[in-house]
């Protein structure tokens, strides 16, 4: 089936590029969603339906894949994604208090994971595979080992300052 192109094409130009890069192959759906998420920081609903139509997949299937993997988010994420490792090693070395202090520092209410200014998303992950550095936190691509609540607060303050100056 031909890839459906409509008036909304321009809006989805970047998505089209990503799909075309993978030749619209259904088996590349996960890679395509990853790249789209990189572009938009999350997977917007309208993009998912567009992907489904363009790749001749049902929206239910695309949604199923997008909700299966924890790496995909259907909610917008912050500019800085802070991941606190809660694997066994990090857990025993104090990832719990670390997580709490980060949430408090960025001002997250119960049940929220992203700040209202869309600057920070805070989440836990099962294991980052850097147990020797426990407890570990990553902010976007950068890894911070042997973190303490005080240490992470300083790093976050710097990022906050950087955002305020912009």
């Amino acid at each position: 089936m031909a890839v459906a192109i409509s008036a909304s094409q321009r809006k989805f130009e970047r998505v089209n590029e990503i799909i075309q890069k993978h030749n619209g192959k259904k088996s590349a759906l996960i890679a395509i969603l990853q790249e789209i998420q990189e572009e938009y920081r999350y997977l917007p609903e309208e993009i998912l339906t567009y992907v489904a139509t363009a790749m001749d997949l049902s929206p239910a299937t695309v949604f199923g894949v997008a909700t299966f993997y924890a790496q995909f988010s259907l909610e917008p994420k912050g500019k800085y994604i802070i991941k606190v490792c809660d694997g066994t090693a990090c857990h025993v070395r104090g990832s719990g208090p670390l997580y709490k202090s980060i949430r408090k520092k960025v001002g997250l209410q119960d049940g929220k994971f992203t700040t209202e200014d869309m600057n920070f998303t805070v989440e836990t992950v099962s294991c980052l595979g850097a147990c020797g550095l426990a407890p570990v936190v990553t902010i976007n691509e950068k890894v911070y080992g042997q973190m303490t609540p005080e240490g992470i607060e300083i790093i976050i303050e710097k990022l906050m300052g950087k955002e305020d100056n912009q």
Partner: protein
Amino acid sequence: MLININHRQYEAQPGQTILDIARANGIEIPTLCHHPALSIAGACRMCVVECDNRLVASCTTPARDGMEILTDSKRVIGGRKTILDLILSDHPLDCMTCEANGDCKVQDLAYQYDLRESSFGSKRESRFSIRADNPFLEVDPDKCILCGRCVRVDHEIQCSYAIDFVHRGFDSIVGTPFEEGLDGDNSTCVFCGQCVEMCPTGALTYKPSKGKGRDYEFQKIVTTCPYCGVGCQLELHVKDNKVIKVGSVYQVGSPNPVGETCVKGRFGYGYVNHEDRLTTPLIKRNGQFEEVSWDEALDYVAQKLIQIKEIYGSKAIAGFSSAKCTNEENYVMQKFIRAVVGTNSVDHCARLCHASTVAGLARAFGSGAMTNSIGEVEESDVIFVIGSNPTENHPVIGSKIKRALKKGAKLIVADPREIELTGLADVAIYQQPGTDVALVNGLMHVIIQEGLYDQTFVEERTVNFELLESIVAGYNPEKVSAITRVPAKDIIRAARLFASANKGSIYYAMGITQHKTGTDNVLSLANLAMLTGNLGRESTGVNPLRGQNNVQGACDLGALPNVYPGYQAVNLPENKAKFEKAWGTQLSDDIGLTVVEILNAAGKDIKGLYIMGENPVLSDPDQNHVIAALESLDLLVVQDIFLTETAQYADVVLPAASFAEKNGTFTNTERRIQRVRKAIDAPGQSRYDWEIICDLAQRMDYAMSYDSAAEIMEEIAELTPIYGGIHFDRLEGTGLQWPCSSREHQGTKFLHQGQFTHGKGKFHTVSYIPPAEEPDSEYSYLLMTGRMLYHFHTGTMSRRSPAIDQYEPDAYVEINLADAKRLGIEDGERVRVTSRRGEVETYARVGERVQEGQLFMPFHYAESPANRLTNPVLDVIAKIPELKVSAVKLEKVNM
């Protein structure tokens, strides 16, 4: 090879699983996620067995020679108990109020394995909420065991891809895109209910039957669906003389072998027990209907008919038989009109749908019916769908086409509208309405020009090829493109693709037949199939999809003005003599009038009209003319299950029994004669159609009486060669496909093998003629009419089925976005559509389903009757009206 199960040896075939072999030999192995119609998931593990000292899932393990299997060892029982224990730990224990109580595999297994509660702790709190945003299905994820049968039936059988697993781990549910529900904007659910049939628990249930009965309280009767011509086998679940729900029938050889049906078959039963059902005969006096006794009503009708006959002659009376009624009733009706009244003016709504098929295919091949069988489409390698919207109008065939595509078949779709199949087509063609002859001639032009035709078939099996060659020579792609507005390259692509088929099949419906040139259109398709040698073999053929449950049967049984049952011409002396002898009376050899001709002659040559189960006020073209015609009659008798729009104009109304209340047979689109079985008693004093007519015949001094529908079929078999071998005792199971000449004959799966019914296939030369009415400056839009998924014909049945009418309550007209913009019409606004014959107000449905300058209206709605607008101009040969093309005006209604 041999395998041992529980210390006994069993024969096994390669490819069989342990479960297959066990079940084939009556050894019980419990399953939850397995279903023979679906792919194997191996998800639930309930089917564990001990195999060479290991525990394996028997549904996924192929048999090997010498295997030692134990199906009920201590280990096996222990394993199953643990699995069930885990399932129960996340399953509510609310069997007392659960809709599935008595029809739940988890409940059965808990009972069998004696598990009262889960040892892991029971589920006290729901983790999910119940979704029931639509009128058809309720979804309770807390009861879901994630066996995936619903997902598989949706993806593999129905091919709607509406549901899938979403989320992960403990949060997994079967869900819809963005959790919008089955009726959400992004949902592709068509509410066929096959997921509910597959659900082993109460996670998926039917809403309309909620709280109305337990499975063990129902009497279950297998019968044939009363809606379209597919002829799905359905299981009516009956309690207290009411149809409570409709279950699936899984039967190899049926038109719906794996339990398929559509939303109408599944949820369209509400009309049967509807309070509007007629229960007593009515006679109109001083403009008001009065309830009368059967004696009074029938005496009155008999006396009036005799009177008309005496004053004006037999020819002043006509009858409309019914494609909704059984074969037996159609036989009795035409016999009544021919033998008792003494005229051949008996016709029915096939005149409005496939009269051109019957005429065209009979001319080309000698037999006017679908050449091949429904199931064969799955093995076609190129499928050409033209003027047919199967996923809405013959949904079970639509799904089969989608399954064929999954297997690699190629699809060509030619339709002025963007139908669902257009999106799946390899070549999509949007021809201008009414230009089909030009299009098909164009395809043949390319095929001949490029030498792609089947020379052997043409030489050995056909005549008149030279004539065809000379006429299509004038239809080069450029010329055809100018007429049809289809790009020349698409014409060439489609031609090459169809010619490349080893097994090419053509499927068509009203888009071909409902034209002034309907017969020509059909002949063109017959030409194309012969040219490419796609006839007389499996998975090929010219396949008209018939709209009504028994329109094929009504034609077969002679509810046509030119033929006796079995297409035996009334004007051939030997046929007349045969039927005169059988019926013991003089018959007329004058061909009678057709539906539209009868209405045209009403008040003039026709004084009395007897209508059985038809609703011409909504179904026939030019409504105002139809109403005037009915009003001008001296006598109008309407025999129906409801006081229809037509019955309102009747002098006498006779209450009849519905399909659920009688025995008989319907013949589906693939010529299969299937049983209709009585499930409940008819309401009030309503009676079988054939009984009513027989009583009337007696009153008109003609002895006609039968004890049962089976007895009528015996008479049919005697007089109708193609039904010669049809007897009720042979119709249990999957029925028989005509021609079936004798008791020994096994029926005919596909026609024209080796030779055509009349010897050689005849090419006909057909030239393009434009539609009678084309858009002009005043009436600038082209209106098409048709059906949509949720409703059926004049809505008498589907609109009285509450779930369906709640979902699709309003009439509409489809308008192209660009036209709507120009006229300032927003989606959902009221618009007025006007033709030279009348005007209709309806809701706008704005989108890209129709092309610019074109409109589409479904004709189901009495409040916005599309047929007030349509053009009654007729095809010269088949007398079918041009319902597909009218010129109209469109304007916004200012509120």
